[in-house]
């Protein structure tokens, strides 16, 4: 499903920083992959390349056989609709209700009002927040906010979910709840790519782990543990 071929990313500026150095790997459909490494190891850069927030300096990134770097500006939105993104800081809109935060993702991709009224409660049910649909983000806990973000990422049924430190702002119990939710989504057939530096979580998931260090892949184990 995803293939990185000799991908290099250098941030040019005052000083040239090599963020990713000759990265190659393959992620199959319906896999659950944890991406681990210290801060600055290149995890976020790797994810940004996937949803085309950044372009690689060299190398190819294939998504269903298609090179992402070759997408035109007009095609990018359609590419992004194939990827659900979840972030450490949730990125919910504070002045919209939970329902509106999720329906937003459907509105921009042109779903009808009828579809939105059906899909949004369904997806909020899956993340266990259907009863708080009319609340605002500030009225619910961090763990719940992250669930809303996951609901928003899921609502147009993308084949891939990217989670960048989704538990970074959460306590251990909420964190594990979020991971369980991601595992459940994965079981339902969505590929999940999780970037984290939470050792405990990675060791509990017992799925494939790719370890990055200073922009290079130093380990790629199919039943991996967090080990740096």
């Amino acid at each position, binding site marked *: 499903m995803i293939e990185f071929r000799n991908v290099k990313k250098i941030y040019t500026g005052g000083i040239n920083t090599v963020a990713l150095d000759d990265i190659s790997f393959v992620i199959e459909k319906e896999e659950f992959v944890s991406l681990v490494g210290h801060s600055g190891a290149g995890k976020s850069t790797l994810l940004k390349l996937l949803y085309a927030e950044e372009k690689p300096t060299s190398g190819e990134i294939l998504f269903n056989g298609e090179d992402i770097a070759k997408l035109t500006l*007009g095609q990018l*939105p359609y590419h*992004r609709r194939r990827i659900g993104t979840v972030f450490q800081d949730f990125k919910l809109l504070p002045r919209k209700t939970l329902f509106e935060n999720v329906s*937003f993702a459907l509105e*921009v991709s042109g779903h*009808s009002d009828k579809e939105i009224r059906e899909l949004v409660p369904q997806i909020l049910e899956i993340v266990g927040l259907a009863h708080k649909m009319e609340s605002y983000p500030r009225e619910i806990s961090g763990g719940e906010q992250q669930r809303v973000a996951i609901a*928003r990422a899921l609502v147009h049924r993308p084949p891939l979910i990217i989670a960048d430190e989704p538990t970074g702002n959460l306590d251990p119990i909420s964190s594990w709840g979020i991971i369980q939710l991601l595992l459940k989504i994965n079981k339902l057939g969505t590929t999940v790519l999780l970037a984290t530096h939470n050792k405990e979580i990675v060791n509990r998931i017992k799925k494939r782990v790719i370890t990055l260090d200073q922009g290079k892949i130093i380990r790629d184990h199919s039943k991996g543990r967090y080990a740096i």
Partner: protein
Amino acid sequence: MLILTLRRTFTSGFTHFRRNGWLSFAVISIISLTLLIISTLIVLSIAANIIIRSVQDKVDISVYFKSEVPETRIIEFRSAVLQYKEVKSADYISKNRALDEFKVKNADNPMILQSIDAIGDNPLNASVNIKAVTPDKYEIIATAIQNSTFKDDISRINYAKNKIVIERLNNVLSSTRKVGAVLATLFSLIAILITFNAIRITIYAHRQEIEIMRLVGASNPYIRLPFIFEGVIYGAISAIVVMLFLFPLIRFAAPYIAGAVSVKDVQANFLHYFWLIFFVQIVVGVALGTISSLIAVRRYLKI
């Protein structure tokens, strides 16, 4: 799909406008000020035109004929002059009519009337009064007449007398146009800069929303449209606000700019221009809002 997009983006733009009360107020006052400055310039140029036109109507050149020249020859001259494209009108004033007019003009001066009667014969010359299309054409017309086949029939052309008035009028006219154009350009530039910055602030307030829209795969037009609609709403409301202020202002100022023309005339003239001014306001306001929005939102849409 298109209608759905338009409806959603318009609603979203309107919501931005409504929920950011103070910001909307600030932007609208800035655009309104700009429009007020621009429309004041328009109004001033209309006022200048009214005054100039009223003076223009009083300017003409008269061609006086020698007394032995037959009427048919003068009528021939009149139709020849009317062929000039610079000439707007040419009135034939016969000896008798000239005398009648002279008598009316001097009705309260019995001395003059008596002396005319004493002469017995009509001492006045027949003439043709010529009005040009624009004041700068009098010179050409006068020269053309002096070089025509009629030059021996003409006793005098009073162009020289009017020359100074005509020239002064031309100067005033061209300098008001120049100053007006420079001022209008200058203020439009300032206005675009200010509006641009104001809308940038509103977009800055929505940067998080823009970021999320991009992440969930909103197309660029979809992200842009709410801000453009917001700009359109700002422009339209500002235009209406300015019209509410402008006409009472004109009513108040009319007596001062009227001068040679009557107050009623000035007001009637502006009412005549009401829809034109309103239309210009709406177009300029909406364009100002839209262009500023477009430029301001651009930098959030890279990649």
